[in-house]
């Protein structure tokens, strides 16, 4: 009887397992194998030109300045971009949730709109906004007496500009999650706090934030993992420039693999990035668990 039940269970799970195996596990395994070879243009001609190189791709990679540069750029993007993005989401969610907010549905739609717009289209508009000479942003700076900034052309400003762009583009998604979580916070907690004389800020610190902690952790992990995979923004706005200041790890992989056809080296980049994301998210979990305990 029990065996029969097991068989039925297997029959239900098997299709999904086969699909996952075929379209996820096998490609990942092949990718790992690929990263141990020097598969390139020449290997396309004849497999005689393909060499098994062990970890040489990985060793080669960590010896190249551009890899560290890309890693540094990506870390910069994550460290600044994730808090900024989550902060914006949280702020927007709290403001929208406030009884003082008017036209809530309209505002919600407006703030969520960047998430559903095409990245390429908005990137073009941002490039106009941030143009050195004719951009609205610099015009605003000049009107208050500041010097114009070469946003996308100065290697010191290009990454901050990309961060602003990415935060603006993405905060709407997390905002919706925060809004849902906020609605689940019991209102009697706020009423009790008000009776005890707690002001708005104290309410936010001692009720809202603790109530949102699990949501924030989840949002933080997802956003971090997503931001490590920075690619489309620099690809559209700067092509990695100026002076490679916006080359991210994934952008490096794209160049290696699809521009120069070094698929072995590109796979190695991908696996290094994967390892890094695993490490960082596990670290985040650990910190969060310690905080909860």
């Amino acid at each position, binding site marked *: 009887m029990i065996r029969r039940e097991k068989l039925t269970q297997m029959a239900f799970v098997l299709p999904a397992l086969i699909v996952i195996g075929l379209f996820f596990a096998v490609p990942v395994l092949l990718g790992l194998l690929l990263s141990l070879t*020097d598969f*390139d*243009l*020449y290997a*396309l*001609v004849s497999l*005689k*030109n393909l060499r098994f190189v062990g970890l040489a791709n990985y060793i*080669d990679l960590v010896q190249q300045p551009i890899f560290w540069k890309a890693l540094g750029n990506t870390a910069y993007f994550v460290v600044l971009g994730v808090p900024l993005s989550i902060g914006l989401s949280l702020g927007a969610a709290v403001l929208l949730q406030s009884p003082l907010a008017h036209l809530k549905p309209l505002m919600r739609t407006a703030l969520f709109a960047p998430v559903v717009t095409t990245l390429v289209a908005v990137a073009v508009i941002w*490039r106009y906004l941030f*143009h*050195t*000479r*004719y951009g609205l942003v610099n015009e605003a700076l000049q009107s208050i007496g500041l010097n114009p900034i*070469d946003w*996308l*052309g100065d*290697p010191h400003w290009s990454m901050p500009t990309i961060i602003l762009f990415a935060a603006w583009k993405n905060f709407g998604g997390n905002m919706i999650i925060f809004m849902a979580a906020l609605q689940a916070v019991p209102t009697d907690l706020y009423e009790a706090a008000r009776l005890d004389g707690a002001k708005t800020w104290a309410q936010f610190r001692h009720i809202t934030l603790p109530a949102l902690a699990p949501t924030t952790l989840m949002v933080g992990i997802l956003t971090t993992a997503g931001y490590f995979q920075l690619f489309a923004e620099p690809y559209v706005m*700067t*092509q990695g*420039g*100026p*002076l*490679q200041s916006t080359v991210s790890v994934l952008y490096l992989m794209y160049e290696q693999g*699809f*521009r*120069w*056809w070094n698929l072995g080296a590109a796979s190695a980049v991908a696996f290094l990035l994967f390892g890094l994301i695993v490490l960082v998210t596990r670290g985040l979990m650990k910190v969060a668990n310690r905080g909860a305990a």
Partner: protein
Amino acid sequence: MISRRTLLASAALPLVACAPREAPLRFWGMGREGEVVAELLGGFQRENPGIAVQVEQLPWTAAHEKLLTAFAGDATPDIAQLGNTWVAEMAALQALSPLDEQVATSHVVQETDYFSGIWKTNVVDGQLLGLPWYVDTRLLFYRRDLLAKAGYDHPPRGWAEWKDQLRALKRIGVPNPLILPNNEFEPLLALALQQDEPLLKDANTRGNFEGAGFQRALGFYLDLLKEGLAPVQSNQQIANVHQEFGRGTFAFYITGPWNIGEFKRRLPAELQGAWATAPLPGPTGPGASTAGGCSFAIFKRSHRKAEAFKLMEYLSRPEVQGQFYALTGDLPPRKSSWAWPALTSDPHARAFAKQLENVRPTPPVAEWERIANEMQTFAARAAAEGSSAAETAKALDEDVDRILAKRRWLHERGRA
């Protein structure tokens, strides 16, 4: 080399020109040229009713990947348009069929009628693998009126005079007399090709950027930026080159033939007499430039090489090339086509005719596109950090040697 204009993506549009008895000849055309080639085929069909041609159009942005994928998937066309810097790459893949025999017996295609620098870009290891279709090179577009104001009645004849002119322009208030976008490798490449030393050595398996020639070119390039004669900028920061050129923000621009049409269209009428083109100045006299453009190539896997060559021959006829020029503005690779009135009467095109006599090919290695990009990256970084040409060249050689490691390995085994 691919002009920016042709990068405009367009949808693939199969076009069957004639009812086929057997499978039609597959022709891959790219961007604007791919659109236009169908219009040229009428005459070919009348002469060869038995050969059906199917033009498949690829956007430039996807063309390179498509070609490689087609090669890997055994789906290459019979004949294709190839950027001539890709010929070496396709040759490394052993994907192309040599054309030497067919050209030797052809009445239409004569090597002597082609600009030799352009022809050479299609020769890899002594084999002719492509036939030039149209050419592209870089030279000077300049503001004659501003130069006159600065006291010169002629374009520069050498580097020294060029620098003097740039300084004079700066004195009369042109903020950055020359545009050298730091994400375009063509200007520096042209300066480097003007030198006598080759850019790669040891049978093209190692970089030769530490050679005196490249260092001289890089030194000159960096000096222009350091002196403020050209701004350290990317081409994206110059939002609208034509508008800025019209405003006199800069007076010299190193660019290609497609801009003749653009400048005619976009500059205001009162400025139409004020701009001109001139061959690139070299270290001590007229200088060489890049040999770009596109070629036709026949793929090895094609079963219909004779028919494919017939089509190539047809499209290479001077009168068909004239028609092609009228449709696209792409410059013909044959000297006899330059006798065509539309070209002789255009003063802007004349400088190109002169420059095309003096163009040099880049090293025919599959890795070249990447090496050219690395070269520009290193140069841009040197300009920003103020490092010397010598240090930069040394670091660049190390990098290029690493890129060419596989090629060296293959070369030692006689396979590359």
